[in-house]
């Protein structure tokens, strides 16, 4: 048997779910503690402030830049290399007089021979709005998905998939909090994409669980769920692998601007794959799914019978 046609062994996922639950609980606790204690390193999209990226001809002298900024009385500045040592990212908190002109005067102060690569200025009010809009977007996406899954499957499936999603979002945020990676609008977009992706995975498994319930005489939920997980395992892994391939390309080749975006997606895809195997299906077992719940209602049954 070659590597290409390898057969996945049948795994008893359900009996291992205790370990998975402990593992998930640990990850969640660590994430929540980190988010609670040190929070997220929010980017200027949410806090307001100014971001300046400049390119130098030779290696940039960060100390010199810091001194210049300090002598001009700028507070809350953060100067670091960005991608290479000829590129510098300057981050300023909202200043006492925070206006769009700030960046022009800083670039002028740094000298003529530098290349202005990027300037972002977000006023305090806009930052507030973007935070609200971002939170709302997350909430609405979850609600929309909840409704669709409850409508297509059953409420227990909806709860199961939402649990898995919240699990994924919290842990992804947790990783961002622990590693103190900057959280900006594009990362928020990535998290929403993770929701979509993780859900995709979960739905495929659920679909199979429903199908198995309807096609076998067995009524024990555990072996049915386990079969479904094993039957979809090849697909789950293949898809995660192809998605990870492109994400890795994006992470390593897409440039600094897209770095944390791709990072969030990679973390999210890994956790999403794990959660659709272990979390979502455990959840519907906990909620007590049974064959009866899967049987179509009388009306639907007639429609199915009427099909050729």
């Amino acid at each position, binding site marked *: 048997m070659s590597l290409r046609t390898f057969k996945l062994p049948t795994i008893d996922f359900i009996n291992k779910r205790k370990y998975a639950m402990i593992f998930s609980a640990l990850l969640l606790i660590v994430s929540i503690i980190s988010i609670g204690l040190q929070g997220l390193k929010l980017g200027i999209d949410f806090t307001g402030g100014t971001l300046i990226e400049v390119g130098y001809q030779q290696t940039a002298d960060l100390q010199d830049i810091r001194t210049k900024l300090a002598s001009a009385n700028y507070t809350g500045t953060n100067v670091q290399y960005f991608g290479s040592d000829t590129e510098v990212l300057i981050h300023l908190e909202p200043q006492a*007089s*925070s206006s*769009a002109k700030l960046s022009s005067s800083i670039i002028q102060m740094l000298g003529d021979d530098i290349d202005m690569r990027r300037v972002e200025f*977000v*006023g305090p009010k806009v930052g507030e709005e973007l935070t609200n809009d971002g939170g709302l977007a997350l909430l609405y996406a979850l609600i929309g998905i909840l409704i669709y899954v409850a409508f297509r499957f059953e409420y227990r499936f909806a709860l199961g998939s939402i649990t898995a999603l919240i699990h994924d979002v919290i842990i992804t945020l947790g990783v961002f909090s622990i590693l103190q990676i900057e959280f900006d609008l594009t990362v928020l977009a990535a998290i929403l*994409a993770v929701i979509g992706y993780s859900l995709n995975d979960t739905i495929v498994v659920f679909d199979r669980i429903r199908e198995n319930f309807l096609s076998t005489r067995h009524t024990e939920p555990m072996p049915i769920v386990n079969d479904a997980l094993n039957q979809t395992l090849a697909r789950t892994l293949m898809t995660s692998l*192809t998605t990870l*391939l*492109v994400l890795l390309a994006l992470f390593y080749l897409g440039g600094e601007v897209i770095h944390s975006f791709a990072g969030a997606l990679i973390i999210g895809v890994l956790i999403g794959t794990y959660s659709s195997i272990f979390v979502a299906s455990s959840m519907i077992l906990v909620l007590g799914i049974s064959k009866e719940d899967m049987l179509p209602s009388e009306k639907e049954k007639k429609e199915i019978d009427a099909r050729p």
Partner: protein
Amino acid sequence: MNHYPIWKNILIGFFLFISVLYALPNIYGSDLAIQISGTGDYVVQDRDVKKIKNTLVDKEIDYKSIGLVNRNILIRFEDSQSQLSSKTLLKNTLSRNYVVALNLAPSIPQWLSNIGGKAMSLGLDLRGGVHFLLEVDMEAVVSMAVDRYYNELRTILREDRLYKSIRKEDNLLVVSFKTESLKTQAKQLIKDELSDLVVVEGSETDLQLSLEISSSAQSAAKSGALKQNITTLRNRVNELGVAEPIIQQQGSERIVVQLPGVQDTARAKEILGAVATLEFRLVDEKNDLQTAVQSGKIPVGSKLYKFKDDTPLLLKSAVIVTGENIVDAASSVDQDNSPMVSITLDNAGGRTMLETTKEFLHHRMAVVYIENKVETIVEDGNTVKKRSKTQDIINAAVIQGTFSNRFQITGLDSAREARNLALLLRAGSLSAPIEIIEERTIGPSLGADNIQKGLISVLVGFSLVLLFMGWRYRVFGLVANLALTLNLVTIVSILSMLQATLTLPGIAGIVLTVGMAVDANVLIFERIKEELQLNKNIQKAISTGYAKALLTIADANITTLIASLVLFSFGTGPVKGFAVTLSIGIITSMFTAIVVSRAVINLIYGDRKVEELAI
């Protein structure tokens, strides 16, 4: 079995043909170009093309082509050297009726653009440029409207001597009366002639009325101010010379300004946000400046102003003319090489100026530069608007002779200041102060980097997936690869047709779609494998594999689509760009991964006896 009717194959072929055709414009590069358009009502014509052609030929500047395209003159160049030198040349030779701007022009063959083929429009993060979000200070708009009504109210009530006093309290006008009958009379008059003013409910006492501007009049004033500011901004952007600027309203008090390819962002910021104007006043020569400064008592009819270096000067309160009377302004230098601005006034302004200069010959007149600013700052955790007004005397000189509508002013610090002032006076003033509340600028070098990195990551990610699929699913994998390639082409063609803006997050969305699009094929193929293991007939395995996977694919994709539509409606900027390509990608992937791959599989395996599937 496993056979598509001919019409279905033709239809699929037709869709794919269209996709390829409209994705095609993107493989042609673009030329460095200069775009010349008319300002205001002026539309460039053929004779302008001839004139410009001659100018370029005279100066021996090489160009690729020149012609009228969509009411613009487009000149294409081989290299940036000739592009830049032509810009300087044309800017100096053409009158101010023309806007000369650098641009990139896609070099699509004629036949393709005839059938509507267009390249994707690139976002500012890919081509470089500035994005501003400006907010109009609506409190100031209302407050100015209150001032206006204050004057009108006084005028109509004065005729019959109805009121005792009128004062302005915040945005209310409080009117007191001597008798109740006068109040009733005034109320009727206000109702008839100033219906925009309404009595604040419950505020009426025996001899007093509090009036406020009705909410409809308030919103009319606000939307009027917004529209006028947009017009002014458009004029100013035209003066800056930007190709394809976007200036549009967002919400009820904000304006988005996008200037692709602008390099001097500092100047753009100075120009866009400035609420600057001039006032001409006579110098108060009767009262003693020293006494006024020391005692702090300013004589009636005068106001204390300062030069930029803080030297005080008493000026008369009455204004001779203001910036609103200025119809044209141009900056230049005088004999001593110091910067100056030549002013042209309208008829009314010219008349007043003539009368004043006759009457006050050999007296001094001052030019006051006024600038309004508004800034949002954080104070004790709350955001507050901070307004400030600077009024500097830029020059106070003795009137040497009479003049009317044409004259020069000097006393400016630099040529840059003179240039900016002339531009602001020409473009008209903003009706209310505006503030830049968000800026995103991408320098041209980063834009080019982003395009290159985006392209490379799409290509590498795409190739990895192709290799993997071919290895894992053999013939079926190759079919999936074909579907994936067509999916990419279809996304590009739809983006081009919709002229949706492609951004870096948008490219990330495409990359993600590539990863996820194979999911549909993976689902189908794994299902076919399963069916084969159940020892089914091969043809039946293919069709059940497709049929059973279909619902799952639909469910999975619709939920992802819900998430990306939410992203689209709530997101701004980067989030939106990502949502657009992701949504389009999900929809096209359903078509290519299910329908197109099935059609190809049918062509390969359908209608014949197959011993073994290469899967």
